[in-house]
């Protein structure tokens, strides 16, 4: 039935226009982020040169020359225009503090954040799916109730607190590194050794991020599976003698997937905001500490570059979610 509708011209048109609209919306959001970031900058008193201005060794003329060189004397629209040009050419502007293009600086940090975030998401989902399904099938048993209690306790611990507690435990036991991403001298190790070293450093930050994500996701999985279990077609399948694993795998999981895919997209965004504090507390060299440093130094282009990168991640997560939703059930484009 669905495939038949897919072939009609009207349906194809509506899904093409849906995707064009969706991508246009994503681009609008990116523009909005950049304009907002520039506006904040415009409204704010002070700039990168403020700290230099305090120094008696730097003359007024030098400061003026630097203002012109950095382009801080030009009006808002002109600066925004130059920045857009820099985005097109791929430099993303220049960092005042580092003196090099922003793009390569930010790129390295984004990769580290992605490594952390992707591992945490993978761990959380890998645990939440089976546990959630299992929970939904035994919700009124003691095990089911204790799952409810356990997840509510985990949700009581914000990432910041969880990170601090895990750091204390790591310090006490000495089993895990208490910060950073690589050991000293990791460059000399073999590829296998480097990977093991990275995994070792990942354990604590990934645990911090994955635990609350797991608690949140497992509740959603349970709710979604329970909803589908109450449908008449499941009752029908049961009446026909389909039970146990076969019932769950063949009849329940696919229809339960839709709300879960939307939640997966949202979990990208919440993970990014969660990973900020974990990176700062645990010394993970990701976007978070980098941005914090840039904020303290008033390094404008770096701050905007970092914010834009996080916006790209969140928006790409949203687009990807819609794509997966579309592939699972193309009717969503034809609302």
């Amino acid at each position: 039935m669905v495939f038949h509708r897919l072939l009609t011209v009207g349906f194809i048109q509506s899904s093409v226009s849906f995707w064009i609209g969706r991508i246009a919306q994503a681009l609008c959001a990116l523009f909005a982020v950049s304009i907002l970031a520039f506006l904040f900058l415009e409204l704010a008193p002070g700039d990168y040169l403020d700290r230099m201005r305090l120094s008696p060794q730097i003359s007024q003329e030098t400061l003026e020359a630097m203002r012109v060189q950095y382009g801080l004397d030009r009006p808002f629209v002109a600066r925004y225009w130059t920045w857009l040009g820099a985005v097109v050419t791929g430099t993303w502007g220049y960092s005042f503090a580092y003196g090099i293009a922003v793009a390569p600086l930010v790129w390295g940090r984004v990769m580290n954040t992605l490594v952390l975030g992707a591992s945490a998401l993978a761990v959380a989902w890998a645990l939440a799916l089976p546990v959630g399904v299992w929970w939904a099938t035994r919700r009124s048993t003691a095990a089911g109730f204790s799952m409810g209690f356990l997840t509510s306790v985990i949700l009581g611990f914000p990432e910041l607190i969880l990170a601090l507690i895990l750091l204390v435990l790591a310090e006490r036991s000495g089993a895990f590194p208490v910060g950073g991403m690589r050991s000293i001298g990791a460059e000399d190790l073999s590829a296998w050794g480097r990977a093991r070293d990275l995994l070792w450093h990942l354990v604590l930050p990934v645990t911090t991020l994955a635990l609350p994500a797991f608690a949140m996701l497992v509740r959603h999985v349970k709710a979604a599976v329970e909803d589908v279990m109450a449908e008449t077609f499941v009752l029908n399948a049961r009446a026909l003698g389909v039970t146990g694993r076969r019932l769950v795998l063949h009849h329940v999981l696919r229809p339960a997937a839709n709300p879960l895919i939307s939640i997966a997209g949202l979990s990208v965004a919440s993970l990014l905001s969660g990973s900020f504090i974990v990176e700062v507390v645990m010394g993970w060299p990701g976007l978070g500490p980098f941005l914090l440093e840039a904020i303290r130094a008033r390094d404008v282009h770096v701050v905007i570059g970092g914010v834009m990168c996080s916006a790209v991640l969140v928006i790409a997560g949203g687009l990807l979610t819609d794509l997966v939703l579309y592939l699972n059930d193309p009717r969503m484009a034809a609302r």
Partner: protein
Amino acid sequence: MRRDKKLTALVLLLLFIHGVAILAGFFSPYSYREQNREVPLAAPTELRWVDGRGAWHLRPLVESPIAGGALVPLRFFVRGSSYSVLGLFGSDLHLFGVDEPHRVFLLGTDALGRDYFSRLVVGAQVSLTAGLVAAGLALTTALSLGALAGYFGGFIDSAIMRLVDVFLSLPWIYMLLAARAFLPLDMAPGTAFFVIVVLLGLLGWPAPTRIVRGIVLSAREREYVEASRGAGAGHLHLLRRHILPQAYSAIAIQATLLVPAYMLAEVTLSYVGLGVGEPLPSWGNMLADLPRGSLLGAEPWTFAPVFLLVGVTWLYHSVLSSLGDHYSRRNLGATT
């Protein structure tokens, strides 16, 4: 019935905590900025019920950290440093204290000899109020914009909803940082608090707006609304009396989601030094004061903000799930 009692108990507990936070000046024996340089990093003052001669006292005795550990009685409703409640009226009445020059430090002192208990209570005021006010701001915006979009539809609706779509795809913590980045780092604590609350409120309105709009959209087609409109009711009356009350359960659920989220956002910002700064305490900058190098060496009572944060977050989550059950049982369609 039993479950509703549980919900009531949880809500009362939360109200109590918020009440203590609002009346922070009354519950804290000293000013958060009063320094006792001669007793830095003091251990919590011991309360005793037996005096040196072995006699029992109903009124606890305090082993004063000042002047060689003399035993002095704890007094209630004492006059002390002056404070103001919500900036509305001032007072100098405190719940408990001891006679001058003695001191009572229930949770010890920090490195500058400031009473840790007082700072914890005032910190609660800062962090909890930030969450409450920011959530209030976001929800008021959501209620009015959602009502506008859902009720009038057409151009207003699509304009507001496009804006919502854009705001929803913003990485909010990074936007918050960016906004904070371009404000002076050495802002006065009060100003910083105000700025953070407004920023949080500004970034938080889109999700609840979308929910309110959905509810208003379906509510305005109901027959009783039609009937009221037919009887000559104006827009404002329809919205206030017939349509918006439908959204209150969703707003309550959103509030239990947003308040702890914003409280944590304030704590996070203050923790990394971009939020409320010294000398004003917040749970965030108190956490940042924990010795970073060796958390092991930290005294147990300095972890008090950790326990409070976990407790309050947990309470809100419990209220959230009880509230969800409550509304779905009443079948009011909590469309979250």
